[in-house]
């Protein structure tokens, strides 16, 4: 009952210690979490109609895990996200170094163009990709995973500018003299990059990679326009399943993805706090 105990009086700026503020924040968190928590809770409910609690079961998880088209979609999503992350990190890092280091004609234009995939509405980019790939008329029946290339290309296009943005803000804190010192001491351009600049960029690269992975895994609209009947990703599959009905199977599959998200976020925060302490140690 520490909350109710007598403590120092509430200072004017301690908004968080006012009950009205606490209730407000509590209500907002309740609003944000109620749907997600009920979704996870009722995925364990032993009832097809999924309204009244009829006992604990994991059978819908079994069903979801044995639903081959759902699992195929999940595999596709993770494959695409992994590929898109790798390419986006490389392209994003290059773009960041380019814009941070060089002065060149038409730079402002490129800088603006690089920000476009971030701000353009998803639907516009989705239809642009659809029209572009239709125009190219690529062969449709490629073996897995090459049939995912259209989606992957689209994902890389909207992911790498985010990576570039994150890495560039990290580069802003780099001291150019460190690189010059390395070169004065005989390091080649490549050695200076690998041993001086790259270690400094690393937290930015990791943050960018996590961002790219989540963005790719999360994307529905752009994928919706670039996927074919045989290349369904997890969000597209869930979309076609929930379009008309709410089933416990989808609840279970969604709960699995929520668990994956929580796990990834935790890892990201752990990495971040560890890198924070390393940075402070230096």
């Amino acid at each position, binding site marked *: 009952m520490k909350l109710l105990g007598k403590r120092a009086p509430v200072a004017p700026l301690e908004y968080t210690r006012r009950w009205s503020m606490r209730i407000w924040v509590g209500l907002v968190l309740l609003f944000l979490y109620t749907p997600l928590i009920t979704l996870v809770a009722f995925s364990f409910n032993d009832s097809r109609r999924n309204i009244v609690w009829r006992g604990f079961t994991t059978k819908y998880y079994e069903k979801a895990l044995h639903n081959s088209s759902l699992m195929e979609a999940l595999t596709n999503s993770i494959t695409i996200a992994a590929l898109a992350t790798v390419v986006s990190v490389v392209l994003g890092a290059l773009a960041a170094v380019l814009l941070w*280091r060089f002065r060149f004609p038409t730079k402002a234009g490129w800088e603006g163009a690089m920000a476009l995939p971030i701000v353009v509405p998803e639907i516009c980019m989705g239809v642009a990709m659809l029209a572009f790939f239709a125009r190219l008329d690529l062969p449709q029946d490629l073996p897995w995973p090459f049939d995912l290339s259209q989606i992957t290309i689209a994902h890389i296009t909207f992911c790498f500018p985010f990576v570039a943005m994150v890495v560039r803000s990290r580069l802003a804190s780099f001291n150019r003299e460190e690189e010059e010192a390395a070169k004065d001491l005989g390091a080649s351009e490549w050695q200076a990059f690998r041993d001086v600049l790259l270690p400094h960029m690393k937290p930015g690269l990791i943050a960018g990679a996590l961002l790219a992975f989540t963005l790719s895994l999360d994307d529905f609209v752009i994928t919706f326009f670039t996927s074919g009947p045989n290349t369904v990703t997890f969000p597209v599959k869930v979309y076609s399943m929930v379009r008309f009905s709410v089933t416990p199977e989808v609840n279970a599959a969604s709960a699995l993805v929520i668990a994956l998200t929580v796990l990834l976020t935790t890892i990201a925060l752990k990495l971040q706090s560890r890198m924070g302490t390393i940075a402070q140690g230096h």
Partner: protein
Amino acid sequence: MEDWKRSRALFAAVATAPLTWLTLFFIIPMGVIWLYSFGTNAGLTEIEISGTLANYKKALEPLYLGIFAKSLVVAGITTAICLVVGFPVALAIVFASDKWKPWLLLGIMLPFWTNLLIRTYALMAVLRTEGYANQAIGWLHDRFGGLLTLVGLPAPGAYEPLHLLYNNFAVVLGLVYVHLPFMVLPLYAALDRLDRSLIEASLDLGAGHLRTLLLIVAPLAAPGIISGIIITFVPALGAYLTPDLLGGTDSQMIANVIERQFKRANNWPFGAALSFLLMYATFIAIAIQALKAKQAEKRR
């Protein structure tokens, strides 16, 4: 910064891949759509780029203009609600103790990282006729409905489930649900940088909390508030999934109309024109933000 001419080989090594990718897979596709918006359907899959403005003219018909206006209104209401709901939350996080701050931030960010489709779906499960919201209200109704007779009101009849889903209310609720973190995080970043002694000074000099908030905090945090508004407004304006899954037949937004032109109606040139109009609206919003941010900078 160094000039590209000083180390051409290095410049080429760094620049080639990202710029080529951006050109090939972003600028060219956008160009294709832009050209299509001046085209006409010739045959089933052929589009002839005839330089016509008919698609834009069609977009200005009352029907489509109405949907555009409605999208702007829905996105505006969403943004306003997010601001009103999110501002106290951002303020609370800023002034929270060091122990609570990271948890509160995580609390706001975790739904933001969760898959959009799953969040929308979770909301559907809560709102549908036999969903949890109706269950809860129905339970309260059955339990406590009888109490009304005690205060002289007639006893209510059997519980009629509310229609919470497939209407405009659900669309706005869904958009607020999805975009709230977009508002809270920039507000938090702006408020966190604020000089607290100014707020204290205002309170010491006798201004109330509300007055301090409106006259001191809001102007100082203006750039953050504006960017929060734009970051919320732009994706809400172009939202596809939320109106599609939560909305009814009359809650179509502009993105849904664009999708229909490309998938079912198969009128790509018209869809292309609509999507460019949406893009221009987005650019105007962002330009306003840049302008306001510059003004705020100057005033400092």
